[in-house]
């Protein structure tokens, strides 16, 4: 199977996840926190994936939980990549003193450990998932700026940019119409890998119990099931669905990321005989 096929398979899987998240109220038979059956009911026709310790429908929780998880993963990735792209292009294009100063600031900010900060901020803004993802995006963009700046810097020196300038194109036009499209491969690959990274991190944070316990998302579902001993009680339908959901989307994003990276980076391709 070729890399291209992998890419299309992952896009299809992602499309399914997005549809489920968008149409959650139409797909889920019950509300996420609604008590609709007796506790620990195994899967049957009424409850597709059974019920949990208080009798909530696991399938409905799974469907509604996808919203929280996807919002966190994709919003932070989108924000972080947009900031890195804009800043990287501006720095690379103008260069000079601005570039010098910002790079020095980045040098200072780079070694600050993000993960502990993230843990505290998550508690801080509980249960505002949108706020946390905005912060995550801003914090995470620091590492992306350099990634975009380097190719933007070398692009700014090329003859076709000079040509565009000589026919009187404005700086904004050059940056948006000439530099950005040439950077799209890097930006797309970065976006896909960041969304996987943030998504898994979001689920992880909620798994270690840092998010609001009232918010139903995949991480808190796994945490709830694991700490209540779903494994030792043999209640597989309680813990497996959220786990498989996370694994599925994470795998799809990872495969898409690697396929994109490989098709944009000829150096990796050469060694593939």
């Amino acid at each position, binding site marked *: 199977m070729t890399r291209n096929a992998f890419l299309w398979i992952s896009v299809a899987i992602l499309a399914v996840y997005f549809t489920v998240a968008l149409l959650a109220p139409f797909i889920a038979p019950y509300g996420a926190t609604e008590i609709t059956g007796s506790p620990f009911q195994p899967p049957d026709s009424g409850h597709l994936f059974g019920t949990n310790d208080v009798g909530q429908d696991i399938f409905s929780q799974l469907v509604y939980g996808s919203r929280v998880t996807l919002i966190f993963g994709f919003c932070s990735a989108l924000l972080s990549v947009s900031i890195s792209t804009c800043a990287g292009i501006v720095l690379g294009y103008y260069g000079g003193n601005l570039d010098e100063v910002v790079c*020095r600031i980045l*040098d*200072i*900010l*780079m*070694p*600050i*450990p993000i*993960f*502990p*900060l993230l*843990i*505290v*901020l998550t*508690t*801080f803004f509980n249960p505002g998932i949108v706020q946390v993802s905005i912060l995550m995006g801003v914090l995470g963009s620091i590492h992306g700026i350099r990634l975009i700046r380097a190719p933007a810097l070398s692009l700014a020196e090329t003859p076709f940019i000079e040509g565009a300038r000589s026919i009187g194109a404005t700086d904004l036009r050059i940056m948006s119409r000439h530099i950005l499209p040439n950077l799209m491969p890097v930006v797309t690959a970065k976006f896909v890998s960041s969304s*996987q990274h943030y998504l*898994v991190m979001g*689920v*992880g944070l909620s*798994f*270690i*119990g*840092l998010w609001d316990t009232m918010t139903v998302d995949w991480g808190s579902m*796994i945490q709830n099931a*694991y700490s209540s001993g779903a*494994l*030792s009680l043999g209640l597989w339908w309680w*813990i497996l669905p959220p*786990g498989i959901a*996370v*694994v599925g989307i*994470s*795998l799809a*994003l*990872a*495969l898409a990321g*690697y396929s994109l990276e490989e098709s944009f980076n000829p*150096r*990796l391709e*050469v*060694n*593939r*005989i």
Partner: protein
Amino acid sequence: MIDGHYLLRRIGYSGAAFVICVTLTFFILHLMPGDYITNYLLSISNYLPQEAVDQFYQQYGLDRPLWEQYVIYVCNILQGHWGYSYQYGLPVFPMIMQKLTWSLVILLPAVLLGIAIGIVLGAWSGWKSGGKKDLALFNFMIVFRAIPEFWWAIMAVWVFAFSLQWFPLGGFTSISVLSSGLNPWDVLYHAILPICLLTSFIVAGNYYVMRNSMIAVIGEDYITTARAKGLDERAVLWRHALKNALLPMVTMTTFQVAGIIMGSVFIETVFSWPGIGLLTTDALRMRDLPILEGIFLLDALMTIGAMLAADILASHLDPRIRMGDQ
């Protein structure tokens, strides 16, 4: 060897990063909604005498304005006083060190093994790049890395501890510790599963970097030259390719040593291992600010120190980096 100017500038940056980090964590933590009294004490008893609350605030200096607290905090840190925990009333530093020791029991072997195995696998895979075995290993690693750590851990507990009953379900020692004292073999028995898991995560990360670096090195002209000289493949691999491919691993390895404090949070949660990860989440829930500040301070010190060490080491090992940074 190393340019004094460059070194000074690096140290200056690290100092600035440290100041920013300390300031940021202090203010974020102190502005956090809820404190130890409202979050914890009120949850175990409905009524607290006002005098007790006042005394608590006064004892920990929480009645002063925030900027004054900040100045006192910074002065204390510079003198090596890391404060006292709200929950236990004990000095923070020895507490963190004690938990860190427990984390290191699983982290140290995992990091060492992970680096060694990762380098060997990555180098081998990169050397054979394009081959069937390389592709199989590479795809396996992509899939392995894509699945979250805690999910691997849960599955490992299910298969090895619950179904096969080869290992205990969690914790760091058997209940027999109460009668017979702490037994190193018992601790090891509890640590094997977490160590194996952590090792494989570190291997997967290192493998990817090492393989890419090896592939890049193989394309270089000096490898062609070495082959053209008629050196046998083993000599090319060991003396020419591997040495150069190891360069990015220097940075990677220093990062892993730096990330050691928070590196095992997920694994510790799954296995209820009494390490620094558990201490962090616990302190966060109780709003035990001095412990949190201590942990973050230690983490910042280690990360920033390791970055500095990585920079100096890399420029020492690779003259090209030195030249490029004028």
